[in-house]
């Protein structure tokens, strides 16, 4: 009896596979969040799964980085750039049935801005002076100063518009207004979303059920893809395992762009990095191509400053300090750094960092610098390197968009860098609302940072995606961490 049943089940599952278009999808994720509330936890996978899917924001960022309407239907900006008036969509309901209104928008933003708010991106709300309800579908925001990135930032999951009743339970039962609603979460294994039939765009949404499967181990992820347990793996963690997917007709492998600049950070507040000649010397000692080949299997774009290469305002500055060991040695000697000087390199537990570290160690050895590699755990890195600046050098990817402002923080930020000229430059960038002019200033900033050799600029982190061939609509590049599910489609395979 059991065998007959099993055969029937098998046969029916085979049949459905052929007869009907698939309406569910399973996506592998390397990182599992501990909370599902993007306004309380910075874990990137929360944004990937929730932003634009479960939670919606006033605006949305498209794959090309441009800003589009979302919960706000349209908006007007006053001539002085300080007053934004948002018109909200009519009839939007949260998954708990409560309606979206100007009041809920005000509630969500006031909450993020509040003095006791623990929002992970509190700085994006800092320019806001006040949020006012004009009428049930109109919200007015007054800014303290012009902010070129304001509309872009409002698309972040950290600026999600939430149902006031759900705030306390969003950590494990997220309630939003998006095209997908939360179904279940087995911590440590999977999270399931289902289509929200009441959403304004529901007719265009083809995939009924999305399951995110958490697998931190690259070998496990590979096995799951090969065994057809999962259909896609965005941000695949191991570039060395990609060739087997490239040669497999079931998959397409796509190398997209991210906003993640990988830098060899120098502690600019510590000797010998206070001397620009030392920073220049080490920049000369770096061979980016060897690092990219060795650490990323050639799948990354070198950078010479702190700006993503796919951006229209990007300038290629990789030639500022071309690899030149003799020059590096000469500059080090000039700066009084003796041959054989030992510098520590404290490396966080990310594959791009640990692998780059070993190559940099051998490159610096050629220039007469002994690098002592210390692999540290993430919690340790945050406390010792990030918070206490207790390090010489480290390797880290900065994945936020528009983050030229990192260099305009004071010397207590872990770069230990403080430059009045750059502060002024950044002030002009973030308050410049004319795109062409802002791009010009951004180019100037890139050149400034490259010249100053604030860090060793290494490469732009690629987005490695392994996706089933029949699946379309998958976002390959990540201007923000979001992965909108409503665009996904299964194409007939045969």
């Amino acid at each position, binding site marked *: 009896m059991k065998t007959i049943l099993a055969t029937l089940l098998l046969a029916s599952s085979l049949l459905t596979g052929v007869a009907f278009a698939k309406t569910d999808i399973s996506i592998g994720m390397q990182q599992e969040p*501990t*909370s599902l509330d993007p306004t309380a936890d*910075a874990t990137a996978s929360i944004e990937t799964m929730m932003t634009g899917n479960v939670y919606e924001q006033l605006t949305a960022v498209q794959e090309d980085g441009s800003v589009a309407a979302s919960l706000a239907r349209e908006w007007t900006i006053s001539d002085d750039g300080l007053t934004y008036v948002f018109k909200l969509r009519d009839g939007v309901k949260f998954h708990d049935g409560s309606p979206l209104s100007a009041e809920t928008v005000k509630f969500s933003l006031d909450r993020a801005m509040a003095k006791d708010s*623990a929002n*992970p991106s509190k700085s994006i709300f800092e320019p806001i002076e006040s949020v006012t309800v004009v009428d049930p579908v109109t919200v007015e925001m007054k800014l303290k100063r012009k902010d070129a990135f304001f509309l872009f930032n409002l698309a972040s999951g950290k600026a999600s518009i939430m149902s006031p009743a759900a705030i306390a339970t969003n950590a*494990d039962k997220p309630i939003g207004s998006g095209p997908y609603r939360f179904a279940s979460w087995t*911590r440590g294994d999977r999270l399931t979303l289902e289509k929200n039939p009441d959403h304004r765009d529901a007719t265009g949404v083809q995939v009924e059920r999305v399951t995110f499967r958490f697998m931190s181990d690259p070998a496990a992820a590979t096995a799951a893809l090969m065994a057809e347990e999962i259909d896609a793996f965005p941000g695949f963690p191991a570039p060395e395992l990609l060739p087997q997917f490239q040669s497999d007709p079931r998959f397409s492998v796509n190398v997209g762009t991210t906003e993640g600049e990988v830098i060899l950070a120098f502690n600019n507040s510590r000797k010998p990095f206070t001397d620009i000649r030392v920073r220049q010397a080490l920049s000369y000692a770096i061979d980016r191509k060897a690092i990219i080949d060795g650490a990323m299997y050639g799948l990354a774009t070198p950078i010479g400053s702190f700006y993503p290469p796919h951006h229209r305002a990007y300038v290629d500055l990789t030639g500022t300090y071309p690899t030149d060991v003799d020059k590096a040695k000469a500059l080090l000697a000039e700066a009084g750094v003796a041959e054989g000087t030992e510098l520590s390199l404290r490396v966080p537990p990310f594959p791009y960092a640990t692998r780059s570290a070993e190559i940099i160690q051998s490159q610096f050895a050629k220039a007469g610098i002994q690098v002592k590699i210390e692999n540290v755990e993430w919690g340790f890195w945050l406390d010792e390197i990030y918070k206490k600046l207790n390090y010489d050098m480290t390797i880290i990817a900065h994945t936020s968009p528009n983050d030229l402002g990192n260099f305009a923080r004071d010397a207590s930020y872990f770069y230990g860098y403080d430059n009045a000229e750059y502060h002024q430059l950044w002030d002009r960038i973030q308050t410049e609302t004319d795109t062409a002019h802002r791009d010009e200033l951004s180019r100037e900033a890139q050149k400034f940072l490259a010249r100053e050799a604030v860090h060793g600029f290494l490469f732009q982190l690629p987005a490695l995606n392994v996706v089933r061939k029949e699946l379309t609509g998958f976002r390959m590049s990540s201007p923000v961490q979001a992965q909108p599910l409503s665009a996904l489609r299964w194409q007939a395979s045969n």
Partner: protein
Amino acid sequence: MTRFFLRRSAGFVATLFGVSFVVFWVMNVVPGDPALVILGIDSTPEAQEALRRLLGLDQPFALRYLAWLAGMLVGDFGTSYAFRVPVADLIVERLPLTLSLAMTGMTVTIVLALGLGVLAAANHNRPVDWSVMLVSQVGIAVPAFWLSILLVIIFAVHLRWLPPGGFPGWSDPLGAARALVLPTIALAAVQSAVLARVVRASLLEVARLDFVRTARASGLARSRILWLHMLPNALVPIVTIVGMQFANVLTGTIVIENVFSLPGLGRLVFQAISNRDLPLVQALVVLFATIVVVMNFLVDIAYGVIDPKLRPAA
């Protein structure tokens, strides 16, 4: 017996008390700030401070420890910093998986080890014995995570008999059982290799004793002597090792659950430590310590059952 029991219970409480204090202290000394782990590197110092206040991290160390102890006494394990739900809920949803895995792992270990160990001892210094010894030597040398990956490649990717990882939940008993097959084998392989050698050695030790020769001389069947006379007398070292192995299996689940993406306590421990999630780490460590102490207690009871000479004085 009562005195023995009381003494053990006092030792048990002291152990838990010591373990919890050491963990609390270590987690405080080790660099790492839960608020920073949760909020990430783009957060403002102001937001970090707000979260620290929210989590009670602005309180002094001693006060936090006492508050935790007080909570424990009334059965309140506290709320996880990172998950923001009660620690007890997190443990309850994951305990069944890890316990099942440890139990099946231990059962397979014991069955395999007894079978192989007895087989080797019965064929002492013959090819069967050598083969068993060779296989167990390889078993001891192979790291569990490597074996796991190998099993997945063979049975999940190529043959497609079993899932490569993940867990469908207990509501799907067949799926749950299938999901546990490979992890159980991976977990049991090393342990049974170790135990099989102990079984063999212990049996060979007993084989030299007079009662075995007497049994043989009186014409008892070989298998009867082996299973009914030699094995019971060889059990003390075997039970000792089994007791120790249970702790190994329990910690082994940390690696196995990560490789097979299983939602058990092993993965939770890993996550909790990375997040500096003190209430969760504390509760898990106390739980693991309890399981190990209880296991040791059972081993001590078992000694008395196996060998009356080892019973505690009344």
